């Protein structure tokens, strides 16, 4: 009853096309954003901010990038972590070598570098599709990490390629504490998410989806396949690059090329699958899920152990946690693919549909 659209008529195309046409949605989103910006800084503690919320936001951004490429444009990519690496190292080098460069400009340029690299490794997509393309992105994954280690210039000749992110300063204001970092990351991610939402509901988003669904038909109606695919790679890599820069500057502090492993690429792919392919909201939901999962397991397994011990005098061995995490991951992927291939975002939509009827059964 609360969620009815009754009485909300649209009299202009502009209002029909807005991001949240239903008033209740608008209210909810404003509430969430207000909560994130105003309430969390007050109630959030150090741990939550730096170990949960900041990585959640950063991974959401990377997942958003991958979602644009794989979910909207239909180009499977297993090299997400490599593009993040490009962003991280590019940002480091810009700040290092261009004295006085504004931090946000450095981040944007880092994203730009990642976009260029993305275009280069996206070129094969013009000839090859599906898993074959996944292999090309694997080449990117391995090659880029190798190159960052091999050419010490990237890490300013430090041993083993480790870079230490410089202090973040915007207009002389330093961003040191977890709270400050959180607000910075939140702002950047919010703006980029808005931009992504705008893009996917505009012509470029439709072109991406057309190429994903049936590229021959897309070509026939005038969409340029090459341009569309390469822009998907470019925009996606830009997002991943910025995410990588934030990863280094606002989360880890020090990072080396080997931190951007194939495992990380898979993790982000899982965020997209579980969250929902082709959905901006899904990227956030998926990232949240995968960030929270190890934490939930870390809490629940000892609790489970205590219960088991109390019941049958036996508890699971200590080594089990990380392996169980892998098994749960794998199992969940399969579960989601069977039950709801469109992920949490679709479940969310179905939930909203049900909410429209609530409390009536039909």
């Amino acid at each position, binding site marked *: 009853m609360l969620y009815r659209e009754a009485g909300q008529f649209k009299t202009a195309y502009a209002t029909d096309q807005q991001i949240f046409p239903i008033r209740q949605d608008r209210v909810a989103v404003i509430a969430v954003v207000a909560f994130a910006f105003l309430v969390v800084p007050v109630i959030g503690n150090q741990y939550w901010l730096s170990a949960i919320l900041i990585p959640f936001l950063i991974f959401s951004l990377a997942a958003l990038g991958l979602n644009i490429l794989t979910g909207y444009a239909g180009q499977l990519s297993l090299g997400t972590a490599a593009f993040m690496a490009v962003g991280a190292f590019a940002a480091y080098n810009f700040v290092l070598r261009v004295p006085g460069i504004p931090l946000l400009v450095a981040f944007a340029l880092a994203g730009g570098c990642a976009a260029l690299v993305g275009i280069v490794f996206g070129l094969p997509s013009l000839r090859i599709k599906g898993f074959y393309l996944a292999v090309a992105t694997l080449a990117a994954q391995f090659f880029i990490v190798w190159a960052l280690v091999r050419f010490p210039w990237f890490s300013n000749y430090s041993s083993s390629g480790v870079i230490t992110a410089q202090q973040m300063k915007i207009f002389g204001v330093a961003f040191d504490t977890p709270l400050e970092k959180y607000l910075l990351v939140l702002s950047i991610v919010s703006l980029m998410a808005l931009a992504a939402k*705008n893009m996917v509901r505009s012509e470029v988003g439709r072109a991406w989806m057309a190429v994903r669904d049936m590229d021959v038909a897309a070509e026939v109606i005038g969409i340029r396949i090459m341009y569309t695919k390469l822009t998907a790679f470019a925009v996606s890599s830009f997002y991943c690059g910025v995410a990588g820069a934030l990863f280094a500057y606002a989360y880890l502090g020090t990072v080396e090329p080997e931190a951007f492993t194939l495992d990380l690429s898979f993790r982000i792919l899982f965020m997209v699958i579980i969250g929902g392919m082709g959905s901006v909201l899904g990227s956030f939901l998926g990232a949240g899920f995968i960030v929270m999962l190890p934490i939930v397991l870390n809490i629940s397994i000892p609790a489970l152990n205590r219960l088991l011990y109390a019941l049958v005098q036996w508890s699971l061995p200590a080594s089990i946690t990380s392996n169980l995490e892998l098994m749960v991951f794998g199992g969940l992927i399969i579960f989601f693919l069977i039950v709801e291939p469109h992920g949490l975002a679709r479940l969310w939509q179905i939930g909203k549909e049900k909410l429209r009827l609530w409390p009536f059964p039909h």
Partner: protein
Amino acid sequence: MATSRRTIGDVILTLERISLGFGGVKALSEVSFDVREHEIRAIIGPNGAGKSSMLNVINGVYHPQQGTITFRGEIRREMVPHQAAAQGIARTFQNIALFKGMSVLDNIMTGRNLKMRASILEQAIHFGRARREELDNRRKVEEVIDFLEIQHIRKTPVGRLPYGLQKRVELARALAAEPSMLLLDEPMAGMNVEEKQDMCRFVLDVNEQYGTTIVLIEHDMGVVMDISDRVVVLDYGRKIGDGTPDEVRASQAVIDAYLGVAH
């Protein structure tokens, strides 16, 4: 009987000695015919005659090994799909080629992609030119939606629609591009009598109201004879008839082909 609703203009498309083969299979052999502006030209023939291949050649999905295509005075060996679209050729497909992951409205909006000029950055900010274009194109698309009477399904994902409505949406997408020439591949296949009548009406309206040249493949002889100005008959990749519906109906070669008489 086809009445002359519009003044039929000069020849805008000429196909000369088009030959097309795949491996050992010859789809088209030395087919030549022309299409005049504002007319409705039907391509008919038994199954496997090469009709769809002919349409695919016209808008560049297939490239013929021999022959030339002259469109609006430009002679070329082959068309490129993107170019064809830019020059005002739109088409529908035999097996519906809609984008199953998008809604009806979005599908039709993709038809207007060539009219949208805003860059990606502008679209990301959704301000100024990008916003205006989006609204302008939405307005145009709504006109097409009104024309084809599909208002009630505009937000429905295309994959959920029944076959007949999907065909209509595909036609809408083609019309949204404001084409000067429309290629229709069996637009009435699989429809019942009422749906066929509706589709016929739409095709005629498009030709009358917008002056669009129409090249259509159709199996229903009643429809073909009723609405076309001229007809081309193909059999086994060769042209065996070309003229007005009456002429073609009377041609012995055509009758033989349809009756299966060896020739």
